[in-house]
């Protein structure tokens, strides 16, 4: 496998996963908003902060209101993490991978791209249209995943697709947990407890985890249990823990994997020490930042080992 091809497979997969996760995150927050009692305010600015996009956002907008933030996260071409940008970049990458991927893959990525080009502006016309468009993104992305799962040999190309997907997913999961922990709840437990429950329920629903959670953990969704489930559950395929296991599995198949493998395992150990149930959300936030840094280090190690091994000079 060419290093360049491996890198493009990896990034294509990351971009698609990011588009999907961002779409789910926006939809989950939109749902929560509808159920918030009077007096509880959700600041949309939390979202861009946790996605690490607040500086970039402020370069383009002065007001952090719902309209501006949603536009920034869905449509903004200057935001490389917007849904539109991610799909465009995934398409550009898969254009150069047509000889590697199943034939229909390109057709469907291209179909997704054409869909979002035509419809992204509709996301401004109210929440229900937005919900519909983002759900379409998730659905079409699902069909791409299905294609890879069912029509690709478990060769090296497949491993890089899986690596990209799981690193991105693991990272986004820590951010999703972070968003929920940052919502300021009222003092009164009579309002606070059910509000928090709804918040987590919406999150679980958005990532299609609610049913699995109920079977695994219980009907009530308390913050601590939900966060624990999303970070540490070993069976649900979107949890950070599960993703790390997948990354480990991919690396095992790849040559010369010692360094990224070591980093993956140490991240895994850190994950088991999550300070859940602490009253102070700052502790959890800092801890999640640390996990994100660990994941960044795994990414760096993979890049150095497989993408730039023969590059002279600096990495692009």
């Amino acid at each position, binding site marked *: 496998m060419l290093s360049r091809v491996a890198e493009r497979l990896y990034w294509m997969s990351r971009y698609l996963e990011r588009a999907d996760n961002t779409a789910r995150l926006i939809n989950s927050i939109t749902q929560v908003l509808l159920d918030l009692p009077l007096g509880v305010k959700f600041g949309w600015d939390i979202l861009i902060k946790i996605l690490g996009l607040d500086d970039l956002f402020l370069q383009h907008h002065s007001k952090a209101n719902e309209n501006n933030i949603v536009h920034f996260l869905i449509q903004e071409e200057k935001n490389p993490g917007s849904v539109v940008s991610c799909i465009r970049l995934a398409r550009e990458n898969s*254009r*150069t991978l*047509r000889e590697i991927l199943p034939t229909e893959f390109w057709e469907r990525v291209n179909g997704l791209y054409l869909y979002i080009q035509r419809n992204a502006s509709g996301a401004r016309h109210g929440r229900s249209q937005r919900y519909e468009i983002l759900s379409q993104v998730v659905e079409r992305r699902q069909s791409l995943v299905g294609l890879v799962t069912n029509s690709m040999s478990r060769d090296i190309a497949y491993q890089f697709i899986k690596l990209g997907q799981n690193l991105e997913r693991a990272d986004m999961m820590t951010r999703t947990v972070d968003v929920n922990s940052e919502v300021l709840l009222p003092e009164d437990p009579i309002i606070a407890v059910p509000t928090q429950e709804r918040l987590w329920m919406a999150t679980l629903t958005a990532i299609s985890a609610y049913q699995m959670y109920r079977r695994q953990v219980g009907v009530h969704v308390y913050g601590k249990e939900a966060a624990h489930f999303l970070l540490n559950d070993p069976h649900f395929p979107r949890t950070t823990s599960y993703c790390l296991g997948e990354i480990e599995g991919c690396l095992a198949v790849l040559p010369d994997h010692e360094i990224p493998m070591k980093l993956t395992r140490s991240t895994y150990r850190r994950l088991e020490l999550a300070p859940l149930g602490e009253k102070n959300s700052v502790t959890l936030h800092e801890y999640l930042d640390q996990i994100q840094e660990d994941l960044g280090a795994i990414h760096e190690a993979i890049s150095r080992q497989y993408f730039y091994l*023969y590059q002279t000079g600096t990495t692009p």
Partner: protein
Amino acid sequence: MDTLIHQYVLQNTYDELVGEGNQPRPATRPLFDFLASLDFSTLDARRQAVEAAILTMGITFTVYSEAGNIDRAWPFDIIPRIIDRAEWIRIEAGLKQRLTALNLFIDDLYNEQNILKDGVFPKEVLKSSANFRTQCLGIKPRFGVWAHVCGTDLVRDQDGTVYVLEDNLRVPSGVSYMLENRQLMKRLFPEVFQSGTILPVDDYPTQLYDTLAALSPRAGVRPVIVILTPGIYNSAYFEHCYLAQQMGAFLVEGSDLVVENDCVYMKTISGLRLVDVVYRRIDDDFLDPEVFRPDSMLGVRGLVRAWRKGNVGIANAPGAGVADDKVVYAFVPKMIRYYLGEDAILPNVPSYLCMYDDQREYVLSHLDQLVVKPANESGGYGMMIGPRASPSERERFAGLIRSNPRNYMAQPTISLSTAPTLVGKRLVPRHLDLRPFILQSEKIYVTTGGLTRVAMREGSLVVNSSQGGGSKDTWIVDTEGT
């Protein structure tokens, strides 16, 4: 009857579908009858389905001048162009004869130069050739073949004669569109393929693979074949991907390859891997900064050195472009006679070479009737169609010809044949040509038909996709079995 095909009005040209009295030709009868059974709305529904399929299949080409708009949907007309197999057999023989002679010519130029010594090909033409690479002198590639992939453009005149318009043997493109056009037609008009008289075209990738594999310096092992592309901004990038996919070859960019110890390697996730054959889709100029343009970012340093040592096969061989020159073209019938002792099966379009005083004078005094072409351009750039050009345009070309006569040749305007094309709500005649592809290494092979390119604008003779041309599926139809 009042269907579109019955309202088709011929121009004063040879039409590929209908002959005298608007009657179909023997090979086109089934298509004619099928078209006669369709009304506009049915045909239009098929056209829309084709356009949707092109968009989702992502069949694209890139136009250089439109930076930012990286690709355009491939323009395709749903009415196929038909050639009788009996006629095709003769054309195929002519194409094989032509490429065989051209390869003997290139090999001769870089080695003994007998054709110069015998005075059949003028030394001055070689001396002033932009694509003659002195760096390739004395090299003997396998089978003596330099141009392994050739796209030869054919046109048909008013009286039905098929002429060779030019030979593209640098990096000819278009074959992927030929293959995709057929896929589209089979997807959307399955009923017309049921008779079994339309010959299939889909063995090209296998034939290309065999042609390239025969160039591998390492016998007995499955060769590592790469397609070297200039990258995503090249107009034929779609085709490079497509062929890599169809052949199971690696699609590489210059930066993916490295030459060490005179061998070519590609950079993989687990180290360097030896490359046996490079099918390059990059012009000579950019191929290797060590030998050609030193500022090239697209090529591979040392590639030509590795080839010269016999450690890698390159198709087409560096320097093969010397025969892709519209002045050299005029000598092809003489080459065929010289090397093969045969008469050319396919005639050239009569050509006037501006390097000769008498021919130049004729060209300058007949600019309003001739097509003037520069020797080394491709893609329809830099040419002038005399009868359509303004007086000032003709004046400009007269100046160009006088200042660099070797670089220009002229031909009478051929009234290209037409075929019905769906434009708006009508079937109208549009001019077209045909580009078959010929492969040569150990064996020689011709595609079944080729890529039919059609000038979509009324009266236009320019068929290049970079100049707004479209394409049609090309059917070689067997009439003898029916």
